């Protein structure tokens, strides 16, 4: 009897512990309870439960800790300070798969907040244990371990290097080949986080043979997987020409263009980012992309999206056009300018507008043909208004000004120039007047039009310092016209005439 009673006491205690730990785990799933839990001192209570005899209590305690640490970095720091991590790391190698999953979850939750916390995780020797977990049979364990490694590696290059040194990369490449979609996603995202910091890390990832598998997975119908794969490829390709060429050699090219037509916005964005990173390195790569029809696909993509999703596409067009005038003409022929103008007008964010302005500048700066193609869309007045607008950010103003200057220096399209003549500031006016002074001496019809449209009048009204470049241009223009008309349009002519009338002695 008494034995039974004794055992009952123990049973009660166990039941109480189980109940407590499960309740805490459930409560910590909701963010509003976490403050109260923390104030109630949940950390110190959960810590001994991690060493409990009953495995379910251990696992639930680990799960609860993970959820708490996930919520904000104070709690994560408390976990670190409470010396919980070494314990977790030790048991990571011994316990069953549920515990491994829970422990990996805690490590991930701690490591995601800041580089210092991730460093603390690394110092406990977690990386080797996680790398061992990557070889486990259970896909859930692999996923949890890969996710933890990804969050540690995302902060900076040293942590990434530490992850690579633990031998994680070949195992991650193996994980990518597994059939479970979630595991593939996480492995791809971890590879992306590792390779984004430096070319050497990217080279390590490439050496493990990741590119071929990533390229195959572009065809997978799952949208989130495609996001991660495209992001990983673009992080690899962005560092150098050789890496970009390696990525291109994996035959992604017509396939990637289908990603630009996906229904998921971020797949489109990451696809455009990948193409941009490849195109920006060299004219040959841009040429290759143009030949594969990439420009058309990107232009359609820009036309169909809104917001920051468009940004990589816009930058890609700018990079392609910047390399050479033939490529720029290819962009124009692919009807690239109307979407860019639409972007410039419709978008609200200044950085997207700045990118569109920059891209237009790159397209239009090569030859008068290019400048005309840009100018006929009446985008120059939009650029000017953006430059003059005080509410635009400095970056936008600078880019708009540069784009205007570059285009104007080659623009011979007089109607477009005239539109700008009326409200341009002096530094832009210099270029406009300069262009007029180059064109007008040779074209009589243009001179006539210039007078009719009031351009001559406007030029007379410009005040320039004598001896400056602007004055020289004005003089050149004035020399193209007969003197009477120049005098007629000069300001104050009517007063002068009236004065002459006053001073005239009538002939009687």
């Amino acid at each position: 009897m008494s034995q039974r009673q004794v055992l009952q006491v123990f049973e009660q205690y166990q039941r109480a512990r189980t109940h407590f730990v499960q309740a805490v785990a459930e409560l910590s799933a909701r963010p509003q309870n976490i403050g109260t839990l923390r104030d109630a001192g949940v950390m110190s209570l959960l810590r001994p439960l991690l060493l409990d005899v009953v495995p379910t209590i251990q696992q639930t305690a680990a799960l609860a800790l993970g959820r708490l640490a996930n919520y904000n970095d104070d709690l994560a720091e408390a976990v670190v300070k409470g010396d919980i991590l070494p314990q977790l790391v030790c048991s990571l190698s011994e316990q069953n798969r549920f515990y491994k999953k829970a422990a990996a979850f805690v490590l991930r939750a701690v490591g995601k907040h800041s580089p210092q916390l991730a460093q603390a995780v690394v110092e406990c020797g977690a990386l080797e244990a996680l790398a061992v977990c990557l070889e486990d049979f259970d896909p859930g364990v692999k996923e949890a371990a890969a996710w933890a490694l990804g969050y540690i590696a995302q902060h900076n290059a040293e942590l990434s290097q530490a992850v690579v040194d633990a031998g994680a990369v070949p195992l991650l490449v193996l994980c990518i080949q597994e059939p479970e979609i979630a595991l593939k996603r996480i492995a791809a995202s971890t590879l992306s986080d590792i390779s984004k910091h430096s070319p050497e890390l990217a080279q390590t990832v490439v050496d493990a043979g990741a590119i071929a598998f990533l390229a195959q997975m572009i065809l997978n119908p799952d949208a989130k997987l495609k996001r991660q794969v495209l992001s990983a490829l673009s992080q690899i390709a962005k560092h150098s020409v050789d890496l970009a060429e390696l990525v291109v050699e994996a035959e992604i090219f017509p396939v990637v263009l289908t990603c630009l037509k996906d229904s998921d916005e971020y797949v489109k964005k990451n696809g455009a980012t990948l193409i941009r990173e490849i195109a920006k390195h060299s004219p040959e790569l841009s040429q290759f992309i143009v030949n594969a029809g990439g420009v058309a696909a990107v232009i359609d993509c820009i036309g169909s999206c809104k917001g920051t999703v468009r940004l990589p596409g816009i930058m890609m067009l700018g990079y392609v056009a910047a390399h050479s005038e033939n490529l720029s003409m290819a962009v124009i022929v692919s009807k690239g300018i109307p979407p860019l103008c639409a972007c410039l007008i419709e978008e609200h964010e200044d950085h997207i507008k700045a990118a569109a302005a920059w891209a237009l500048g790159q397209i239009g700066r090569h030859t008068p043909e290019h400048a005309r193609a840009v100018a006929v869309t009446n985008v120059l007045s939009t650029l000017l208004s953006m430059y003059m607008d005080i509410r635009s950010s400095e970056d936008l103003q600078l880019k708009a000004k540069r784009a205007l200057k570059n285009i104007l220096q080659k623009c011979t399209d007089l109607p477009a120039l005239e539109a700008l003549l009326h409200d341009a500031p002096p530094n832009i006016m210099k270029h406009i007047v300069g262009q007029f002074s180059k064109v007008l001496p040779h074209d009589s019809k243009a001179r006539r039009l210039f007078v009719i449209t009031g351009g001559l009048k406007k030029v007379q009204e410009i005040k320039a310092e004598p001896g400056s470049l602007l004055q020289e241009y004005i003089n050149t223009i004035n020399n193209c016209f007969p003197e009477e008309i120049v005098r007629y349009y000069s300001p104050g002519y009517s007063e002068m005439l009236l004065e002459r009338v006053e001073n005239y002695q009538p002939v009687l």
Partner: protein
Amino acid sequence: MVAVASGGRGEYGRARPAGGEAVAAAGGVFPQEQVSMLVIYSIQDRQSHRKKTRRVNLLELLCNFLMRSFCLCFLAHFCTCFLLVLPNLTQDFDRSVDEDRKIAYKAAVKIQSWFRGCRVRAYLRYLNKMAISIQKWWRGYQSRRYFRKMIKIQKRWRGYYVRKYTHNYYALKKYLEAISLNNEIVRNELQEYTEMTEKEKKKKDLEKKEKEKKYKARKMHYLLSTEQIAGIYNSPFRKSPDPMELLLRQSKPLSHRRQQVRSPFTYELYDWPTCKRPPAFATGQPLPPIGKQKPQGPFRDTAEVLWQRYKPLEPTLRVAASINSPLEKAREEMKREEWRNCIHDNEFLPFSSYHKNEKYDLSIHASEKTGQETYGIKHFREVQPNKWIAGKDFQTVLPSIVLFEKFGKTYSKAGQIV
């Protein structure tokens, strides 16, 4: 300087003022340090005044020095000063004046010749330079003329080459056209791809909806309409039944099976990393459901009722066994077999002329009139009005069964599908 040097030959006391004079005269012309250098030379020379070569050498040195440092006019001025000064100096000496004069004259000649030589050389150099510059210009002009001739050919060649290969306008145009064509193709293909994916997605959605509908129909099979009572989907005011009604008719009722217990590990793989669901650790068999509420009233137990309703038939031995004895059965069997195997219908008859007078039977199609047979549709019995006794129809004595009267008249024609 020569004056100073010669001043060193005489007495120290007398030489000095003259030397000083010369030095003063010279000092006005020449810078002070050079004068002091020369004074040092002259003091040294006093000890060796007999060494003419040394004096001449010193003279040469001095002349060189002069030439390097000063202008020719100064030198000329100095020479004239010297010539004026010299006679005064030689008067004080004991030696023959003539000797001194000769020496001085030679020295003067030397200096002058040197000076003239320098002047001529300078002039020659100047002439040389002028000649060189003219020749230079002339040669340049010649080669430029030649070069202009060469340029004309090179110009043509370079223009041709650049236009043909480097900036080939036509090749560029073709390239751009090819690019636009390619773009069109790519755009079309991508469009097709999008359409295809959209169609597939729509199809999937439709299939899912269909599946849901079918499941619902199976679950709510009791809403099916019966002969007497129209179901809610088969309202008499409608022209045709609702599609749901048709679905209900086609579907099999869902049996009341208890839903399978899903393994607690199935959603772990998906949800565990996000830890949205609490872990359902294996707890063994699920507990049985808590007792359902029994329906109120004097009802029999449902299990009993079902047992009774679906009791299989238990025929008695009499029913199960046949009436006829096995003998009868065998006879029947034989007869059946015979009939089955008989192919030829006409009996074998002994006399050959039996069949000659047979009346030919018309086939049904030939014997009947065209159109439908009226028997069975328009009338059921043969009517022979000439045998009728009375002109009235039969009278009904017993009342007909009410329910049978309603046959075919309860529902509107709407119940029948056109």
